[in-house]
């Protein structure tokens, strides 16, 4: 009897859940759509439940497969060869998307230093990106400085901005730090938006010169591609080196346990400062490349959603893993392009995808389950 009662309950549960969820959507969708939703959910809820059980069971196997992949990932450098060939085999449109994804890879790698290595949640990372982009835009349009001279100057500005914010903010921990960085990001955007005489406000700055290389103006998209690819490779190389250096180890120690690492003699404040400044440096580089590629910047490109997008790239691939972050950036740039037809629904997918990922695979798609990040 008990068994039967349990059976009935497990049959009724999906119906109840489906009814509940479709009732919630009733005022927004009307009665017909809710009825359809109910029918879909009655089928989907048990499937989702089965899927969840399956994923939970498959988890250890996934780990085992992941362990088979050699720790030494130098063979991944072989991927450079197909990357070099992209402009020869693809249309301009694909190359264009690839350039954008390259810029995002640099950004995400920069944020990965702060969030992934040092474990400091930054929700206003886009501010450094904006400062980098506007630095180049203003230096170029107001003073006529070329890309290669403006680049180091812009990088100095963004790194300094990183330092300036970090000094006071690092007294805070966890969520508070996240909110202060969010506030910083919004303030930068509001200033760019309202300081009409300097930044031309919401109209943005246009007519930014493309980079020159050996007396040749980089105008074609394939030229940009190689420029961006060069910087992506440079950043991956430097990240690899930093990851295994004294500084990188100190960051990871801080991430795993702030107090224990300071007890072991790690100057936590100093290394946190380095991580924020180093992350800001890469964001500044990405900003310069962005301004040079678009030849136009406006505050619209630097909203909070952009910060969230970069954070998602770091998280879905696997926090703290370079390969994972690159995969995350590629997925989040290329997926919406593939889903062009379903453009309206893609943000719905991103939102629910984030929840789903956190519930079932908090370490990210390609991440390893090591340590206790941010706990």
């Amino acid at each position, binding site marked *: 009897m008990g068994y039967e009662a349990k059976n009935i309950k497990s049959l009724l549960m999906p119906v109840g859940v489906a009814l509940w969820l479709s009732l919630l959507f009733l005022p927004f969708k009307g009665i017909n759509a809710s009825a359809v939703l109910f029918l879909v959910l009655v089928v989907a809820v048990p499937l989702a439940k089965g899927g969840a059980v399956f994923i939970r069971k498959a988890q250890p196997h996934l780990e085992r497969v992941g362990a088979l992949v050699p720790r030494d990932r130098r063979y991944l450098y072989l991927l450079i060869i197909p990357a070099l060939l992209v402009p020869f085999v693809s249309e301009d449109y694909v190359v264009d998307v690839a350039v954008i994804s390259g810029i995002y890879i640099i950004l995400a790698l920069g944020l990965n230093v702060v969030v992934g290595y040092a474990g400091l949640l930054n929700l206003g990372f886009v501010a450094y990106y904006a400062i980098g982009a506007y630095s180049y835009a203003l230096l170029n349009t107001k003073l006529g400085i070329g890309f290669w001279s403006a680049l180091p100057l812009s990088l100095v500005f963004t790194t300094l901005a990183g330092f300036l914010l970090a000094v006071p903010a690092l007294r805070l921990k966890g969520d508070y730090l996240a909110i202060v960085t969010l506030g910083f990001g919004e303030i930068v955007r509001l200033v760019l938006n309202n300081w009409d005489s300097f930044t031309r406000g919401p109209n943005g700055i246009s007519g930014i010169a493309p980079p020159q290389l050996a007396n040749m103006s980089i105008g074609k998209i394939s030229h940009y591609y190689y420029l961006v690819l060069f910087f992506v490779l440079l950043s991956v190389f430097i990240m690899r080196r930093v990851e295994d250096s004294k500084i990188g180890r100190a960051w990871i120690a801080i991430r795993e346990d702030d107090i224990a690492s300071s007890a072991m003699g790690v100057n936590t404040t100093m290394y946190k400062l380095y991580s924020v400044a180093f992350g800001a440096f890469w964001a500044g580089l990405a900003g310069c490349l962005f301004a040079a590629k678009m030849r136009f910047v406006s505050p619209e490109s630097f909203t909070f959603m952009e910060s969230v997008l970069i954070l998602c790239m770091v998280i879905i691939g696997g926090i703290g893993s370079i390969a994972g972050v690159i995969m995350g950036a590629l997925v989040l740039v290329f997926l919406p392009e593939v889903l062009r037809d379903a453009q309206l629904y893609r*943000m719905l997918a991103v939102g629910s995808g984030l929840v789903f990922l956190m519930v079932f695979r*908090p370490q990210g798609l390609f991440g390893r389950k090591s340590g206790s990040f941010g706990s």
Partner: protein
Amino acid sequence: MPTTFENGAVFLLIFRVLLQQVINGLTLGGVYALIALGYTMVYGILELINFAHGEIYMLGAYLGIILLGFFTAIGLTAYSLPLSIALVVVLTVIFCSSYGFTIEKIAYKPLRKAPRLSPLISAIGVSIFLQNYVMLTQGATDKVFPHLFGNAGFRFLSTTVTYLQAAIIAASALMMIFLHAFVMKTKTGKSMRAVAQDKTMASLLGINIDAVISVTFVIGSGLAAIAGIMVAAYYGLVNYYIGYIAGIKAFTAAVLGGIGSIPGAMFGGVLLGLVESLGASYISSEYKDAYAFLILIIILLVKPSGLLGKTADEKI
């Protein structure tokens, strides 16, 4: 040289403008305080910044418009306006509380033991989902709340206070008093305070933690729903992205007063409303949204525990 009489007139004018801004600020502050309560209660219990809370407020504003439209269509508003408004409020609160309840069950409950970052990101996911859901079903353009209450009002110390403003201020104050009484006097309120203090100990004493957390989300969402309706009626326009900025401001209010503290959230909300409306009229209205962030940053740097909060010692 102005005469004494002119001086008096100028002074009166300055006073009138100031008073008008104070009343506007109180109206705004009451709304912020209602949303801030949801943040502070959830943070007090789960130590989670419930990023999706602003969206509940946005859903409340939309539901107000949708339900009022529905009641107008079936002729209930023409029959009795007060009855239909009461029904709109009750139904909106029920729906929003259910949203809060469901969101907690789906997006936060499985992550109770996860690292701190996971529920925060899950909350951002919920927020993105809800914004885009409303945009898809209700359109990206502004929605108009029917102009029911007009601009009628009464004279108060040489300025005009609209009935709507008075109602918003009174309703927020009343709800805060009720909430305070609920948390301090009832058994559920007592268990909420116990869970906020020490989850493990509370569960050892036989308190159902899951139920308390659900109640917290239900109450917080209900308050946000009411704030949503009031703002929709006050400004007359609603958008799918109002939740984000209002959420951030309400969170600022909660931090300002000391996160986790219920009187702190009320105080912080009112203070933030006043600063914003005075700052917009006396300093610069372009940077209206920046004041909240500036205050937030200054408070966190100078006194992270907030104005009314207690500092907690770090546990190792």
